[in-house]
């Protein structure tokens, strides 16, 4: 009651109005924040609205075609017509079959054995081997479910095989790496990346603006220290913080959720450290281009959102349109997700991950270059 009675105090609305006008003026004066209020939500709505697709299409698929007759081509054509599959790799040996899956280049690998058509006509129910990368169950599930129907339809219509209620062949599908489709196995490694991204960005995003706002920048700039030295000095302590954080998340993920680490723990630690450094460098870059801590935090969030939505953490990466995949390739989380899932769930080694490691290095160097060149050594 006493709270409400205050509203009745004389001048209540006058004082509220004074406060309101002041806040509004300050908001209008902060041009960058104002632009973010208007432009960013629209941009993000358009971006994510068009990019996100929960029934993914054009999933990269490898084919090992050992059948010489036309039936092979019919099956492949049928697969591509569905738009679920996009045949990106033609394989020639069984060794390649395992390699393309482990490296994450494809989500499916299909083997059509020799003598497939002859066996079909004899009614032997030949086996079509389909291996799927099940580290992301959402991506592979729908496509895998429709596979049998598609192939049967193609065979009946194009190869003039008798239409029977019984399938003519057997699909032996191998959901690899996460056979039971346990979502924790998919989510936990992803969460390592998400949590690290968020905390690391904020740590350094505030580091330069804090010096500006507290007035310590003026002293610092009058001392003989270079922008590169300032950056390295500000990033390094947080690498240790990030490393501890990563160890905790991965450790508890293994203990509580039973997520395996099939690959090298040392490699995982090394590449996690690289990922931590990339995010710290990006946060630091935000800090050098923003004028105050509020702007730095806003930029962090604007960057964080695409990291969640376009990296393959929430929605299948392969299912996004190509332009959205390009944006995804520019995000560190995309590459780290591939790295962490591959090492933990597939037991991938360094040679499988070269591309993503190189991408992380490039992102880090770009961020650091922008930060060092944007850092103003004067107060002009």
């Amino acid at each position, binding site marked *: 009651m006493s709270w409400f009675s205050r509203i009745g105090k004389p001048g209540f609305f006058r004082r509220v109005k004074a406060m309101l006008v002041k806040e509004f003026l300050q908001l209008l004066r902060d041009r960058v924040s104002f632009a973010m209020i208007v432009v960013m939500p629209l941009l993000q709505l358009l971006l994510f609205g068009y990019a996100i697709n929960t029934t993914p299409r054009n999933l990269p698929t490898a084919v090992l075609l050992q059948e010489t007759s036309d039936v092979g081509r019919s099956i492949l054509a049928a697969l591509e017509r569905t738009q679920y599959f996009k045949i990106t790799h033609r394989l020639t040996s069984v060794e390649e079959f395992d390699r393309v899956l482990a490296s994450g280049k494809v989500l499916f690998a299909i083997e059509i054995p020799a003598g497939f058509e002859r066996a079909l006509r004899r009614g032997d129910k030949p086996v079509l081997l389909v291996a799927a990368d099940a580290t992301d169950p959402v991506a592979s599930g729908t496509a895998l479910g429709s596979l049998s129907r598609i192939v049967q339809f193609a065979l009946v219509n194009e190869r003039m095989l008798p239409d029977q209620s019984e399938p003519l062949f057997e699909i032996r599908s191998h959901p690899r790496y996460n056979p039971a489709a346990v979502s924790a196995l998919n989510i936990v490694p992803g969460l390592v990346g998400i949590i690290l991204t968020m905390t690391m960005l904020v740590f350094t995003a505030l580091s330069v603006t804090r010096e500006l706002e507290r007035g310590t920048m*003026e002293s610092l700039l*009058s*001392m003989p220290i270079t922008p590169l030295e300032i950056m390295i000095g500000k990033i390094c302590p947080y690498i240790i913080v990030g490393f501890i954080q990563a160890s905790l998340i991965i450790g508890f993920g293994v203990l509580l959720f039973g997520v395996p680490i099939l690959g090298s723990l040392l490699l995982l630690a090394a590449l996690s450290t690289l990922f931590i450094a990339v995010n710290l460098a990006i946060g630091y870059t935000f800090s050098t281009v923003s004028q105050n801590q509020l702007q730095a935090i806003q930029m962090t969030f604007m960057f964080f959102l695409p990291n969640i939505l376009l990296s393959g953490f929430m929605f299948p990466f392969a299912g996004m349109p190509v332009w959205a995949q390009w944006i995804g390739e520019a995000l560190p989380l995309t590459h780290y997700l591939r790295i962490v899932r591959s090492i933990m769930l597939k037991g991938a080694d360094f040679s499988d991950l070269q591309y993503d490691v190189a991408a992380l290095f490039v992102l880090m160097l770009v961020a650091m270059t922008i930060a060092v060149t944007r850092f103003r050594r*004067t*107060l002009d």
Partner: protein
Amino acid sequence: MNSAADIAIDVKGLTKSFGGRVVVRDLSMQVKRGVIYGFLGPNGSGKTTTIRMLCGLLTPDSGEGTCLGYDIRTQADQIRNHVGYMTQRFSLYQDLSVRENLEFVARIYGLNAPVRSAQQMIERLGLQGREEQLAAQLSGGWKQRLALGACTLPSPQLLLLDEPTAGVDPKARREFWNEIHALANEGLTVLVSTHYMDEAERCHEIAYIAYGELLTHGTVEQVIEQSKLITYDVNGGNLQELLHELDGKPGVDMVAPFGSSLHVSGRDEEKLEAAIKPYRASGDFVWTRSEPSLEDVFIELMNRSKDNFR
């Protein structure tokens, strides 16, 4: 050769504007080595901007010059190594202790024994017992001392102090100035900005800047003499009424109360005498010809320059 050895600061025609507003206009100055040089002027006159241009924190729009023989445009790195800059607002780390702040500065400047240098500075500043206190918890006077300690720690050749005593109590102010004189005796050049007149008298040389222009410079005596100001000390009678009557009269360039008396000044002796003649004749007041104070000179200069720039 001679100039580089004897002159610490030598700049010509410095001009700087922000957003179309000229803050410093065509400023030239020379400061000899080993001198305490007072930089006076009202708030917003361009003192801070000038100091920042001298130590490379701001790039002048035009003009050139050297600081300790290094070009202020191209050799800011060397200047940083030999100049200690104490900012107007406390700019050390509030969340670090006295010792940690000093050790940080010592390491940045690459001193051989940062821990020992910091300890020596703590003793020199009389901060023993407070070395573990966070800078944020220090009083204004102690903060100023710490800031001075931090910028003298790397043994600079030139100190730039931007209103170091603003908001500090008189006792701390006196101690601060004693320290500055001690440093100057050791051969340091000190450029100190202030708007306290009593501090101007403690400087070897002074310069007065208003509305971005350097209006006068020299020793205190020279500045007073150059002003060519004739001043009367007036006592008795209704001084407030007299002030209002004289203010703005031709020949009277400045009237200002000064303690229990009134200072009446003018640059043109004849006109001034003519203006005050009727009041002298009345016999209500006691008129004494006296030396203008530094404040009289500065306020008169400022009034004059205001007319020029507005």
